[in-house]
């Protein structure tokens, strides 16, 4: 198969991954209207046809539903003319359709000018990336992920209900809702500190805290270049100095146990053993959390603070007076 450019190839591969082999995907397609029984389309050459660069994905067989995707590789943002062209194609295909419903989507990794929105909403076309209130620059990889997400969701959606998507701007809104949340996701990826494993998804402090608050500490572990807490319910949190991972993935948390581990107790950070810290921490519930860049700290039953460093732990009491609650 020949591709006009690299973007088309990536879009095609993403569509195949998202929709599977049971969905027809065509490229460099000559599209013809399905019903030529209208005087205005009669000609000596037969029904009108137009060769376009398109990914055509058949989402449903009865009734037949087809998504026509235009991939725009442009130096600048796509302009109203690009959307208008696709609106004309999709509108014509629907007007002379013999039962097939066509949806249209324009993908332009460099984004869209604001004037395109009114054309897309009035003609019910999806835009990727979404037009947001402030100008955002999504990289091509993120736009392709959006594309895959929209295809999977649309494929599931048309099996349930499709009529409501045909009324403008329902399909535009559908694509927007599924892609708009990449804004926050993109910011989280930029931070690159919290991750959910084993999926390796970008995460956040709040999501990490929501996962572990109230969980009981079952063990504390030291491994090569990282420390970890094992919680009840087979949940792990691992910290290596710059990256915090949360999830049920045992592979990293059960890595080679380090014999070089430094542990401190009390506010004065007096040296102690990992066993001494474990004896206090195990069985306590997480009641708070804080990220201090070089270490992260967790409240235990509102009585102790347990700190995870790259190469060790610290523990101290949070109760007053300090002298009466030394470990």
């Amino acid at each position, binding site marked *: 198969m020949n591709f006009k450019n690299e973007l088309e190839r990536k879009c095609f591969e993403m569509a195949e991954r998202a929709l599977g082999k049971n969905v027809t995907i065509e490229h460099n397609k000559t599209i013809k209207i399905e019903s030529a029984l209208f005087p205005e389309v009669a000609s000596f050459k037969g029904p009108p046809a137009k060769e376009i660069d398109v990914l055509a994905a058949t989402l449903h067989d009865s009734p037949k539903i087809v998504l026509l995707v235009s991939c725009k590789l442009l130096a600048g943002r796509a302009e109203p003319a690009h959307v208008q062209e696709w609106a004309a194609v999709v509108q014509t295909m629907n007007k002379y359709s013999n039962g097939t419903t066509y949806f249209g989507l324009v993908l332009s990794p460099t984004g869209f000018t604001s004037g395109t929105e009114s054309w897309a909403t009035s003609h019910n076309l999806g835009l990727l990336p979404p037009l947001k*209130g402030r100008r955002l620059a999504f990289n091509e990889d993120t736009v392709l992920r959006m594309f895959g997400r929209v295809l999977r969701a649309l494929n599931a*959606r048309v099996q349930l209900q499709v009529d409501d998507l045909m009324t403008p701007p329902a399909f535009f809104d559908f694509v*927007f809702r599924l892609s708009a*949340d990449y804004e926050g996701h993109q910011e989280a990826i930029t931070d690159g500190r919290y991750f959910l494993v084993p999926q390796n998804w970008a*995460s956040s402090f709040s999501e990490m805290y929501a996962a572990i608050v109230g969980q009981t500490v079952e063990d504390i572990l030291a491994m090569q270049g990282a420390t970890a807490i094992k919680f009840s319910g087979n949940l792990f949190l691992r910290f290596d100095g710059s990256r915090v991972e949360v999830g049920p993935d045992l592979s990293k948390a059960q890595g080679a146990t380090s014999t070089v581990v430094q542990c401190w107790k009390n506010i004065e950070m007096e040296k102690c053993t990992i066993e001494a810290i474990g004896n206090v921490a195990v069985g306590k519930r997480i009641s708070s959390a804080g990220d201090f860049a070089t270490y992260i700290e967790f409240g235990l039953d509102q009585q102790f603070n347990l700190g995870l460093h790259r190469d060790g732990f610290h523990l101290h009491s949070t109760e007053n007076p300090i002298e009466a609650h030394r470990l």
Partner: protein
Amino acid sequence: MAIPAEQILLVTKDGERIHIDELIDRLRSESKRILADDEVGLTLYVGDLDIYNLKPTSSGEFLAQLVTEVSRPRFAARVLRRQIGASMISVTGDAIFVIRRGNTLKKVRAENLEAGMVLALGEKVYQ
């Protein structure tokens, strides 16, 4: 559009309040409803459940709109507080409002809403 999940006011067709977190927790076990569940968040189809989203108007009444999908994004966008009519609402900066301008209507994003603007349905923007 783009209103964070915790701000959506959902009701049944009989007007009974629905808590979105409870709704999502109840429905996520029905795999056919899951449109997306990935690194960005969870989106569920609810178009067959007669669930409505209530939007406040200046008269103190609510405009009910049928909800087809509910989402729980993992990374919410920045939220703004706006007083529309008698109600304070929280919306993301890119939420769309339709305002009156002379004899025409114009779309304005929440971050560009200004005090004194009048929405298409007659509610006034106070802050």
